[in-house]
């Protein structure tokens, strides 16, 4: 049997645009004029997002890809789904590719749910006849039957997502590429989707490539896994071994996140966490401050900034968000320092890190996100447990103020 995905010496080089990914004509003209006089060609800085990737995936294999932000995970999927061409090497894909790089691509708010199923389905590569055949099943699975003939703009974001997932889950490609999709939406529906996709892939022998930061989902969903770093495969093996290798790698992290790259989109420039003690150590119950620096290069309508406190099991323990409104203003062009103060942080002892997302509330577009930034330690030291067992690991996630009341009867 020939592999479903065969990759040989694949590489992708990006030119590092100095400020913006596209060019302004005026710069080209003015540089051209300068070049006539200086006759010096300016060479843009380049970097390899992927290099020397060799990979064989057999039909029916379910393979996870993990690695830090910028390791090249998404670039690899983009090349396999032909969104962007490679710079070197080649790949042979045997079978129809369904790409779930983002669910709900092409959804239009003015069209009804039913119309969007047709539009989205055909963008994802379904034929009209196939959509007709699956229509009932798709509507059923989405759980939005009642609103199916209502324009999408009246849907809640949850409903839109369910509809999008539902179309995606009914694609019937031989090779399915999934990127980050399971990180959103309500947990119950996520499970339903994973279940549905897993079931389909096992039953019909589908090949799946799965990119996610949710290591739990990777573990449940895949049997084999690749670990990417700086565009190279640095480890591959069964999923558990690869996740362990990833954890070992991840320990080399810094206490503060600073971004130096410039982008044309709103972006997160820095994340700092002000703990009660130095070196990112925080005493349970004391005030904690999160400082996020953002840069908004052009006016946006409704920006939303959210931040999750993640534990080592990659569970989000707390989620804070702010949506730009009348009293808050950070959507106009400029740089901002956004602070979030938690007067009493009562998470239980352990290691935590921050996931920060910057997006637009209306378009539901995420401009920038930083995951596993500014790791910090919550300590119970100095707090009397009041019993002789001491503070045990994993005894709980969170402590709340409470009072006991005892009455003799």
């Amino acid at each position: 049997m020939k592999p479903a995905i065969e990759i040989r010496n694949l590489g992708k080089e990006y030119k590092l645009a100095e400020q913006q990914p596209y060019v302004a004509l005026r710069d080209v003209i003015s540089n051209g004029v300068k070049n006539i006089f200086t006759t010096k060609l300016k060479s843009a800085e380049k970097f390899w997002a992927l290099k020397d990737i060799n990979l064989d995936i057999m039909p029916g294999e379910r393979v996870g890809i993990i690695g830090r932000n910028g390791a090249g995970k998404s670039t690899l999927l983009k090349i396999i789904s032909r969104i962007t061409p490679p710079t070197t090497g080649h790949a042979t894909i045997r079978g129809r590719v369904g790409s779930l790089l983002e669910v709900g691509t092409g959804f239009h708010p003015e069209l009804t749910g039913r119309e969007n199923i047709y539009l989205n389905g055909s963008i994802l590569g379904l034929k009209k006849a196939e959509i007709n055949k699956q229509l009932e099943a798709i509507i059923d699975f989405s759980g939005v039957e009642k609103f199916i003939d209502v324009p999408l703009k009246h849907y809640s974001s949850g409903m839109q997502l369910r509809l999008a997932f539902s179309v995606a889950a009914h694609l019937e490609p031989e090779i399915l590429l999934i990127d980050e999709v399971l990180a959103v939406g309500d947990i119950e529906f996520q499970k339903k989707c994973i279940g549905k996709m897993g079931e389909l892939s096992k039953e019909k022998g589908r090949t799946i490539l799965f990119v996610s930061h949710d290591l739990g989902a990777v573990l449940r969903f895949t049997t084999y896994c690749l670990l990417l770093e700086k565009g190279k495969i640095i480890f591959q093996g069964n999923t558990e071994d690869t996740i362990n290798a990833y954890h070992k790698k991840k320990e080399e992290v810094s206490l503060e996140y600073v971004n130096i790259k410039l982008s044309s989109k709103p972006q997160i420039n820095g994340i700092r966490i002000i703990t009660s003690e130095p070196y990112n150590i925080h005493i349970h119950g004391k005030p904690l401050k999160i400082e996020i620096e953002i840069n908004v290069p052009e006016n946006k309508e409704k920006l939303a900034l959210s931040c999750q406190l993640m534990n080592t099991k990659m569970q989000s323990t707390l989620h804070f968000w702010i949506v730009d409104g009348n009293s808050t203003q950070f959507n106009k062009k400029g740089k901002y320092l956004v602070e979030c103060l938690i007067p009493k942080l009562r998470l239980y002892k352990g290691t935590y890190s921050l996931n920060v997302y910057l997006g637009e509330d209306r378009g539901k577009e995420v401009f920038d996100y930083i995951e596993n930034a500014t790791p910090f330690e919550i300590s119970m030291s100095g707090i009397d447990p009041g019993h002789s067992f001491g503070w045990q690991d994993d005894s709980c996630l969170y402590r709340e103020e409470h009072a006991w009341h005892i009455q003799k009867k």
Partner: protein
Amino acid sequence: MEKFITNISPPSGFSLGLKELWQYRELFYFFTWRDIKVKYKQTYLGILWALLQPLGMMIIFTFLFSKTWKIDTGVISYPIFVLAGLICWNLFNASVSHAAESMIQNANIIKKIYFPRLIIPGSSILVALFDFIMGFIIFIAFCIFYKQSIHWTAIFYFPAGIFIILVAAFGAGTFLAALNVKFRDFRYTISFVMQVLFFSSQVIYPLQSIQQSWLKYILAMNPMNTALELFRKPLSDNQSDLNALLIGLTITIFILIVGILYFRKTEAYFADLA
């Protein structure tokens, strides 16, 4: 089971990708359907807008050029002359400007899904054609109202004129769409260029009214003049200048080739740029 084999390698060579376009013909239909539907869902008067705009312009130009400053349009009455010009111009203008913007407007789809990119500017031209058909029906109604005689050769000349507009618009539209992705400040020049083209096309005046022959040949390079010459031929008894028509036709084909070549050459990198 049908087996799809895809080979992915760095871009090289040139092909039109017609086979692939044919495979994706349904997506063509859905993009066009979406744009038409959304366009008319968002407006209160809906499809009437496609008719009101050329009619309004027709009234203004008729008032100016057949009452105030007389323009001689021969056997064809001025309102019919200018309405024919305006619906054709609108087809060209809407096709080119929508196609030029189309890649940026659909950037979020381009960045996530693969399909032949030519579908996007192509479908914006089909949307403009839909508006044109509405205007064309009104145009025929006006011809009947003004008792304008239409020669039977219209069966050939009308489609020929429209075809030249579509070909030129597709060439120019794909070229500008690709330029727009790469150079974001390019879009600001488009409306200006369109205005220049409007006044160099025989939309509101006939080319015959120009005296200098050198100027006539320069204006013949504008594909819209060729298209309008053909479109209006069954309405009048004018003798067309065959050389001028050939110049226009050559330029039209040239624009098409340059547009598609440039688009196909840059399309692989749209997802990286957009």
